[in-house]
C-alpha cells in the first residue's frame, strides 16, 4: 500500500521552468513540495480509515458473538497465553516508539539514526511474528482450531468438498513434545532460510549494489528476530508450565501402559499426558511429518493430537444435542474462528508493514530522505501505528477475558 506516495523519476524533462520540478522526488502534477506532502498525508490517512473499517467488520462480528455467547469467550480465552500476548504488545508498542523516532530522524536529516530506527522496528515486527508462530503451532497441536475444522462436509450440509479438513483425531500424545518438535523443525527451516540474505548479500557485494545489500540486511534482521521470537516464547512457556510439566511426567511414568480410548471426550488436561507406548514409535515419525507440514504451512498444521477439552465441542447445529459432559460451552470454536481470522489478518498487515519498512531502509541507505522530503517515512510510520493500535485492541479483547 505504499502507492500512497508517488515520486516520479522520469518527469524532469517535461517542465523546466521552476525549481520544484528539478528536485529528484517531485511529481510533475503537483505544484510544490507542500502540496505533494499534503496529498500523500491525506491519502495515507484515508487509507488508514479504510483499514480501520476493514477491521471494524471483524470487531462487529466479535461484539455480536460475545454479546450472544459470553460464556464461549470467557471459557475459550483461557487457552490463550496472556504472557505471550502481553510480550507481543510490549514489543509492538516499543516498535511504534522506534518508528516515531525514525520519522523524527528523517525530519532532522539524521540518516544514520533513521536507518538504525527502521532496523529496530523491523526487528520488533519479526519478533512479533516469531511469538505468533509459537502460539499458532501450539494451538494447532492442541486442536484449538476454527469451528469447521472438525466438521465434515456432510455434517454442514455442504454438497461440494469445500471444507478444509484437519483429519481424524489420533490417539492423544504428549503435546509438549510434539509442539517442541514442530517448533524445532520450524526453527530449522528458518535457519536454512538464512541462505536467502546470504545469497542476496553475496550478489549485492559482487555487483556492488547497495540496495541489494540493504535487502539482505533486512532479511537477516527479520529471520533472526523470528527465530529469537520462537525461542523466547518457548522459554516463557516453560517458565509458566514447569509445574504442570513435571506433574504430567509423573502421571506419564505412573500409568505408562494405560491405553485410553480413541477420541474419548471430556477428559481433564493432565490425562492427556498419558501416552500409549506401543504407538510411540510410529507417532514419532508422524510427528516429524506433521512438523514438516507445519513448517511449510505455519498456520494450518495437520496436528494429530486429540484436543484435551475442545475435542468435541463442534457437535453443533440446532438439531444436534450436545452430548459432552464437561463444562465446555457449545460452539466454543467460534472463538477460535474469530481469533485466527483477526490475528491472521493482523499478522498479514505486519508482513506488509515489514515490506514497507524494508523499502524505506533501501531508500534511506540510498540517502533519499532529507528534511524537505521525508513523506514516505512519515506515511509508513502512520501505517505502522495503526497496525500497532489494532493489536492494542485485539490483545485485551482476545487474551484478557475473564481473568
Amino acid at each position, binding site marked *: 500500500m505504499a*502507492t*500512497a506516495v*508517488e515520486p516520479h523519476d522520469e518527469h524532469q524533462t*517535461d517542465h523546466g521552468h521552476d525549481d520544484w520540478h528539478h528536485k529528484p522526488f517531485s*511529481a*510533475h*502534477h*503537483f505544484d510544490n513540495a507542500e*502540496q505533494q506532502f*499534503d*496529498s500523500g498525508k*491525506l*491519502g495515507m490517512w*484515508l*487509507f488508514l*480509515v*479504510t*483499514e480501520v*473499517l*476493514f*477491521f*471494524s*467488520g*471483524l470487531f*462487529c*462480528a466479535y461484539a*455480536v*458473538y460475545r454479546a*450472544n*455467547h459470553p460464556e464461549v469467550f470467557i471459557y475459550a480465552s483461557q487457552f490463550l497465553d496472556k504472557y505471550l500476548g502481553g510480550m507481543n504488545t510490549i514489543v509492538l508498542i516499543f516498535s511504534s516508539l522506534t518508528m516515531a523516532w525514525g520519522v523524527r530522524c528523517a525530519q532532522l536529516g539524521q540518516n544514520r539514526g533513521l536507518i538504525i530506527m527502521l532496523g529496530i522496528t523491523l526487528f520488533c515486527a519479526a519478533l512479533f511474528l516469531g511469538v505468533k508462530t509459537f502460539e499458532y503451532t501450539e494451538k494447532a497441536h492442541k486442536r484449538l482450531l*476454527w*469451528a*469447521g*475444522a472438525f*466438521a465434515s462436509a456432510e*455434517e*454442514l*450440509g*455442504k*454438497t*461440494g468438498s*469445500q*471444507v*478444509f479438513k484437519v483429519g481424524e483425531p489420533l490417539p492423544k500424545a504428549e503435546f509438549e513434545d510434539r509442539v517442541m518438535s514442530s517448533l524445532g523443525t520450524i526453527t530449522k527451516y528458518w535457519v536454512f532460510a538464512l541462505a536467502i540474505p546470504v545469497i542476496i548479500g553475496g550478489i549485492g557485494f559482487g555487483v556492488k549494489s547497495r540496495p541489494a545489500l540493504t535487502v539482505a540486511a533486512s532479511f537477516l534482521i527479520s529471520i533472526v528476530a523470528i527465530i529469537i521470537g520462537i525461542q523466547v516464547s518457548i522459554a516463557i512457556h516453560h517458565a509458566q508450565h514447569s509445574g504442570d510439566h513435571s506433574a504430567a511426567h509423573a502421571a506419564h511414568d505412573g500409568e505408562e501402559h494405560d491405553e485410553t480410548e480413541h477420541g474419548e471426550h471430556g477428559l481433564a488436561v493432565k490425562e492427556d499426558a498419558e501416552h500409549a507406548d506401543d504407538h510411540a514409535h510410529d507417532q514419532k515419525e508422524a510427528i516429524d511429518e506433521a512438523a514438516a507440514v507445519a513448517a511449510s504451512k505455519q498456520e494450518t498444521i495437520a496436528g494429530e493430537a486429540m484436543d484435551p477439552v475442545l475435542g468435541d465441542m*463442534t457437535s*453443533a*447445529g*440446532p438439531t444436534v444435542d450436545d452430548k459432552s459432559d464437561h463444562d465446555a460451552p*457449545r*460452539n466454543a*470454536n*467460534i472463538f477460535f*474462528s*474469530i481469533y485466527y*481470522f483477526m490475528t491472521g*489478518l493482523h499478522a498479514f498487515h505486519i508482513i506488509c508493514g515489514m515490506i514497507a519498512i524494508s523499502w524505506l531502509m533501501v531508500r534511506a541507505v540510498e540517502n533519499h530522505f532529507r528534511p524537505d522530503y521525508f513523506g514516505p517515512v512519515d506515511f509508513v510510520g502512520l501505517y505502522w501505528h495503526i497496525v500497532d493500535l489494532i493489536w492494542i485492541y485485539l490483545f485485551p479483547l482476545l487474551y484478557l477475558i475473564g481473568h
Partner: protein
Amino acid sequence: MTSHVMPAHSDSHSSADNYLTASKGFLSWAMTLDHKRIGLMYLIGTMTAMFIGGFLALLLRAEHLSGTPGFVSHDTYNQLFTLHGAIMVFLFIIPSIPGALGNFILPVMLGAKDVAFPRMNLCSFYLWVFGAIFFVGALLTTGLDTGWTFYTPYSTNTSQTNVVLATLGAFILGFSSIFTGLNFIVTIHTMRPPGMTWFRMPLFLWSLYATAIIQVLATPVLGITLLLLAAERMFGLGIFDPKLGGDPVLYQHFFWFYSHPAVYIMILPGMGIISELISTFSRKAIFGYRFIAFSSMAIALLGFLVWGHHMFASGQSEMVTIIFSALTFSVSIPSAIKVFNWLATMYKGSIVLATPMCYALSFLFLFTIGGLTGLFLGALATDIHLHDTYFVVAHFHYVMMGGTLVAFVGGLFYWWPKMTGKMYNEFWGQISALIVFVAFNLTFFPQFVMGSRGMPRRYYNYLPEFQVYHVLSTIGAFLLGFGLLLAAIVLITSLFKGRKAPANPWGAATLEWQCSSPPPLANFEKTPTVGNPYDMQSVVWDPDTESFVRRGEVPIVPDESEQPAHA
C-alpha cells in the same frame, strides 16, 4: 483574437499534442499515468461489461416469454440472473461514472493537471481488470448461482459453483473502487487551483466527492465480509453458518452495510451529471447550488444508516425494523430537493433539447418514478407484501438503470466531444434517447404491476396469470437493448465520420470546456481562470470557431460588469 490567452479554441496548436496523440503504441496506453487515458480505458471496459450484462438480461427476458421451461434450464437461469446482477453492479454501475467519466473529467473540471496519485489510478484500473478476470473465470468454469448478494448459507454450504472465485473477484473490485474514491477525495482537497473554492466547484465534483466518501467508508466492510464468506466456505469458520453456531442474518447486515451505500455510489454521480446537463442546456445557473451540494453530502451520510431496510422480512427484531424504516424515509428528502431544484433550474431558462438534455429529461421522469416507488418499499406494511417481488426489481431498475445508466449515457454524449474531439450525429442521438425512454418504461412498468400482484423475483417458472406482463416486459427489453446499441453506434460512427469538435460546443461555463477538445496532455497550457461554474452569460457563441467562447476574454465584446472601470 488573442489565442495565447485562450487555449480554449486556439487552432495554432496542431492536433499532435492532445492526449490521444501525444504518444503511440500499446505500452503508452497500458502503462499510462494520464487520467484521461485511464478514464477512456475504464470507459471501454465498463461498456463491454454493460453489453455482456445486458446480453444476459435479454436471455433472461427471452426465457420469460413463457412461464414454463424454455430454452434454458433451471440452473442456467439461476446463473444468468446472478451474473447479470453481479456484472452490472460490480463491473459496470459502480465503476462506470466515477471510473470512466469521473477519471476523465474530474481533474479537468477542477483545473488540476492530474489526479493526486496517478499510479494508484492506473492500479485501480488494473484491479478492475483482475476482478473482471475472476468473474469471467467463475463464468467459464462453473458459473455462479448464488444471486449477486451471495446470501449465506446458500453461498457457503449449498451452492456447487465457484463462489470463492467470484467473491475474490468482488473483493478485488472493491479495492479498485476504494482507490478511485481515495484518489478523488485527495485530489479535490489538495489539487484545487487558486480561485477554485469549495463553492465554486461544479456539482458533478460535489457528487463525486460524496460518492468517494462512500467508496472509502463502505467498501472496506464489503471487503472483510467477502473474505469472511470465502473463509466460511473453504474452512468452515462458523460465523455465518447456523450449523456451527453462526448467524446467517449477520451476513446480511454486513453485506447491506456496504451494498446499500453502494446504491448511492451508483446514483450520486448520475445526479451530479444531471445537474450539469440541465444547467448547461437551460443556459441558466443551477438553482439552489448549495442545497444540491449539501443534499449530495446528506445522501452520502444518511445512506449509511438505512441498510436494514433490505431485511424487513428477514427476522431482525421489530424495533430495529421500525427504526430503519423511519431512517429510510429521511433519505428520500435530499433526493426530492434535487428534483425540485432541477425543475426550478429549467424555469425561465433557454432550453435546447440536445441529446444529453433528452437523456437528462428521461432521467428526471424515470428517477422520479424510481424514487416515489421507494416510498412503497420504505413503508413497513406495504414492504412486507412487496419485498422480494418484481415490484422491487422494477423499483431498483428505475433507479439504477433509469437513473444511473441514463445519466451515464447522457453524460457520455455531453463529454464525448471533449473526450474524442468529434461531434456525433445529433438527430440519431435524440432518436436513441427516445427509444431508450419508451422501451425502458415498457420493460419495467409492467413489473410494478406483477410485483404488486405477488410475482416473486428470481423465479424461473411462473404462474400463467403473470404471462402478459412478462411478455410486455420482454418486448420492452429487446427494444431497450436496441436503443442502447443505437446510442453506441451513434457514438462510434462519430469517431470516423464526426466533424471536429470545438472546445466548447454546448456553452457550459465549467473549466473542462476551457481547454481544447480533446484536451492536451497536461490539460491546460496555462492555469485556467476560475469563475462561477454556472455563469452561462460569461460564454457566448462565436460563429468563427463554431464554439462558445469566454466573453470576458474576447476583446471585441467587453463585459463591463467584470471589468472595473479604472482598475
